[in-house]
């Protein structure tokens, strides 16, 4: 009994640093945001905060820009997840097979992940420049008219999808690679004896055994996709015609340019609930698949 108590105490002591930091930087700010969402907190009058209950929430549902930003992020998520995860899996399969020069390719595909998103965005801004950019020059050489990319309301978000997928895929590739290398060789040998072809090998052996890795990757990619802000901030400033305005970017603008912390907090709460629901549905769906 006494020993158990002592062990418990030790456990709490070991947990304390993590708990204190999590509480200070995660739980406390989240609770504050929920509190502020019911107030009229204006950044310049921090000593004059009044409770306004649901006023912010009612205004948000009438705010065309916020609603547009929700539609935009839905489009982004729906496009970026298959592209980014698919690219990551493809790269991982290629590297897994290729034993020689393996490290070179790993570094090459992983390097965009290490670079700052701002740097990546600025680089692509130059590559995608309608008149001088490399991409349009290549297109021109193969006989395709120059594309407006970021300055077109219909192409801007799709362009950001590709840039983001290109930047992020290296990270998921590494996780997939680890997953692939965890698949025991005996399974493939057994398959060989049964005479499976390449496609069957991938579909009936690799894919099912990668499932736990895939679920992890899907959920983490989904959550980080929802947080899109840097690319539109640097590349399009949310334009053209709000086509690339995202909820997090709009929250940032409302809070820090417009100084409306209360309103921004309320959007954060709503958006947090949206992400929570989507993640919940996703983990349900993947668990049902299991059964």
């Amino acid at each position: 009994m006494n020993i158990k108590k002592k062990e418990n105490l030790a456990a709490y002591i070991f947990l304390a640093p993590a708990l204190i930091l999590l509480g200070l930087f995660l739980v406390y700010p989240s609770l504050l945001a929920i509190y502020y969402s019911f107030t009229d907190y204006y950044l310049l009058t921090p000593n004059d905060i009044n409770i306004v209950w649901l006023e912010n929430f009612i205004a948000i549902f009438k705010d065309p820009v916020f609603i547009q930003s929700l539609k935009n992020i839905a489009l982004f998520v729906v496009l970026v997840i298959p592209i980014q995860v698919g690219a990551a899996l493809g790269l991982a399969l290629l590297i897994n097979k290729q034993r020689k020069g393996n490290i070179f390719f790993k570094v090459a595909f992983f390097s965009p992940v290490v670079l700052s998103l701002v740097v990546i965005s600025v680089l692509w801004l130059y590559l995608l420049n309608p008149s001088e950019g490399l991409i349009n020059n290549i297109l021109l050489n193969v006989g395709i008219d120059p594309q407006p990319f970021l300055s077109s309301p219909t192409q801007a978000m799709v362009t950001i999808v590709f840039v983001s997928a290109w930047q992020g895929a290296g990270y998921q590739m590494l996780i997939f690679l680890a997953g692939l290398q965890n698949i025991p060789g005996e399974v493939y040998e057994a398959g060989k004896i049964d005479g499976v072809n390449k496609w069957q090998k991938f579909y009936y052996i690799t894919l099912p055994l990668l499932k736990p890795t895939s679920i992890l990757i899907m959920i983490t990619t989904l959550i980080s996709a929802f947080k899109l802000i840097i690319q539109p901030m640097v590349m399009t400033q949310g334009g053209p015609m709000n086509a690339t305005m995202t909820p997090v970017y709009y929250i940032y603008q409302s809070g820090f340019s417009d100084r409306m912390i209360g309103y921004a907090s309320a959007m954060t709460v709503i958006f947090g609930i949206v992400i929570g629901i989507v993640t919940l549905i996703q983990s349900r769906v993947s668990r049902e698949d299991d059964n």
Partner: protein
Amino acid sequence: MKKLSVLVGVVCAVLFLAACGSGGSSEANHNEIVVWFHTSLETPEGEAMQNTIDRFNEEYEGEYTATAEFVPRSGSGGGYEDKINAALTTDTLPDVLTLDGPNTAAYAESGIIAPVDEYLTNKDDLLPSIIEQGTYDDQMYGVGFSESGVGIFYNKQMFEQAGIDLETLPTVDEPWDWDQFIELNETLHNEFDKPVIDMGFDDKSEWLMYAFTPFLWSQGGDVVSEDGTTAEGVLNDENGVKAFTFIQDMVKNGYSTITPVEKGFHTGEYAMKLGGSWTIAELEEYPDIEYGVMPYPTSPDTGELVSPSGSWQYAMSASSEKQEAAGALIDFMVSTESLSEMSLANSVLPASYSAIDEITDEVSDEMNVLIEQNAASAQARPLLPNYPQVSRIFQDTISDTTYYEENSDIQALLDDKAAQIQSALD
């Protein structure tokens, strides 16, 4: 473990910084005041500010002492304003601070800054646009220490190539109207067969508010009503439609472009550029381009020349207990000598009539066109507590207008945006 020690280090640093922050304003002596500047001491602007402070300390030796703190702001305006916001929560603002013109209303409304009228010995000398920008509720809160302006920069060689007689170009006294300006664009467009003016449509920032409101004002329109309460029926009235149609036509007819080549005017790609006083300094590095500056074109209906203006200002914090000293410092910093020094050092337009007289012989002809236009026609942006939102919606309106295929119905676009501004005002 490494991560943990880093985190612990961060926590310690935060606590340490917080402890430092509380020492912001010294309460020891009623004659010692602290000033915050938004720039770096390394810049010409910062140097001029430090010089002014040094002269103040000499002049008022034994009476007042001012200490300057330089808090450089980042490109988007962060950094400095973050520090102000942090000081607000801890009540540690300095006695005197700088703020951007469009922030006057928000800061005054929130009780951060105090009126300075009674401390200004020569208020009538300040340009009307400076007084307009700093005045909220009939009291002057902020005093701009320089002015800014925008004009049409033109490439003399390209104009001559298109057969345009440079002698016939407009002046501040006799500006051209939009029709004449369009004709000029047409001539250039026929000669070069590509966009001929970079209007900065790709710069989705305050620029779109700052540089394009004069077109609306010249037509007699406005962003919001004078009392700052109404946008519906103001932005979207017939004047708004006319002004925005003119702006849209500039893109629709191919005279301007939404994706200009970077530094296109500087490298001879475009014959004209809607550029600010800072463009003059940039062009010093491109000696091959011979250029001139002409004033804004005016609405054919009114013929009224309107140009943009605005700058950072000095203000006194409302929480300062040394308002006498702070007032004396602000008055000193906007004296003819201080303002002239600022303009010459930083290549910006002077903020007072006497400073104009002082420096007009020392600056280029191009700068003088902007100075002249500024004194004759500068208008300050609207003074609204929720200016940031209003400005952003206006920026969107300009940007959307340039998508002429999607927004051929200007009235509908303006109705929509006016409603958005209205809900920001309510």
